[in-house]
């Protein structure tokens, strides 16, 4: 195994789960999330030589993942907004354990948000520092704090609205 492959393996192990969450949060679909994650890491592999002396490789990978997610909307012409109906929730109850059902419902609630809100909130849920989220999303830190506050409220409100079902 070459040095590049070993390095890539380490990067993949350290970041794949979070990138998968980001892609799942954006698309609301497990298969699409896997496809986007694969595409993201292919780009990471292709650009690995360009990564030189930058502060955090995770920031760099997140930036690639965010941009890959943004082009998914363009290429696939799909909207991840899947209206959360009683039907979906009933099916979820049958298919998943209580914990998984709640996580599934949370993903469906994230899918109700605007595209950039989905990306930001998944990074917040994964506890990335605000400075890093600002760097990845290209939004100023001050503006980001306001946005995050608004998105947190919006997501909590959507979740609680549907928890009654």
């Amino acid at each position, binding site marked *: 195994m070459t040095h590049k492959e070993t390095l890539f393996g380490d990067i993949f192990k350290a970041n794949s789960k979070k990138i998968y969450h980001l892609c799942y949060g954006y698309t609301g679909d497990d298969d699409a999330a896997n496809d986007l994650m694969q595409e993201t890491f*292919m780009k990471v592999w292709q650009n690995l030589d360009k990564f030189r002396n930058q502060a955090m490789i995770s920031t760099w990978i997140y*930036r*690639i993942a965010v941009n890959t997610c943004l082009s998914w909307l363009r290429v696939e012409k799909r909207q991840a907004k899947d209206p959360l109906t009683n039907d979906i929730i009933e099916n979820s109850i049958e298919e998943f354990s209580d914990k998984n059902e709640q996580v599934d419902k949370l993903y469906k609630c994230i899918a109700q948000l605007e595209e950039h809100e989905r990306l930001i909130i998944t990074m917040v849920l994964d506890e990335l520092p605000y400075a890093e989220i600002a760097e990845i*999303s*290209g939004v100023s830190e001050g503006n980001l704090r306001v946005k995050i506050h608004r998105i947190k409220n919006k997501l909590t409100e959507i*979740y609680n609205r549907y928890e009654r079902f």
Partner: protein
Amino acid sequence: MKDFNALKDLWKGQTDEPKMNYEDLLKDVGKSNRSLSNKILLETLVMLAGIILFIWIWHHFSFLMWTTHVSLAILISCCLYYVTVEFLDYKSLSRSDQVLQKPDEYVHYLKEYSRSRHRFNTQNYLIYSLFIGLAICLYSIEVYYVSPLWQTILAAVFTIGWFLVCWKLMIGYRKREQERLDDMITNLEKLKNQFH
């Protein structure tokens, strides 16, 4: 009722894992690079074979009319144009610096790229087809002087048919492409606005 911290705990407790490991991914990287390179290589080889064939015809046959020389020059130019565009497109695809840009700049790049592909698939393709049609027309002048009448008529019918098919296909294609592009641009505008 749950607050945001409860949602965060829920998020942390999720057990879903990505369905792939990096060894499979590395295999896919190799396969995907090879399949794209093979496709471009095959298309380039076919076009190069076409260019060699036209040059061979040009040198081995003597033509009466200057229009036939123009016709062959146009056909060779069309093949060269196609090979060049393929090569530039391949270069642009393999240069993936854009993916490291800030998201709003990246969305801007996607918008411009979509527009340029649209221009290529509609305007440029129309011009490309017209030039091939023109080359066939010019060649049919030679056919008119050296071949029996039925061959001349056949060449004329073929040329007219070529134009009609291209025109008909292009109208449908342009309409579909325009709708697709409008949709795409609307989505990209919406995304771009979200980052401001």
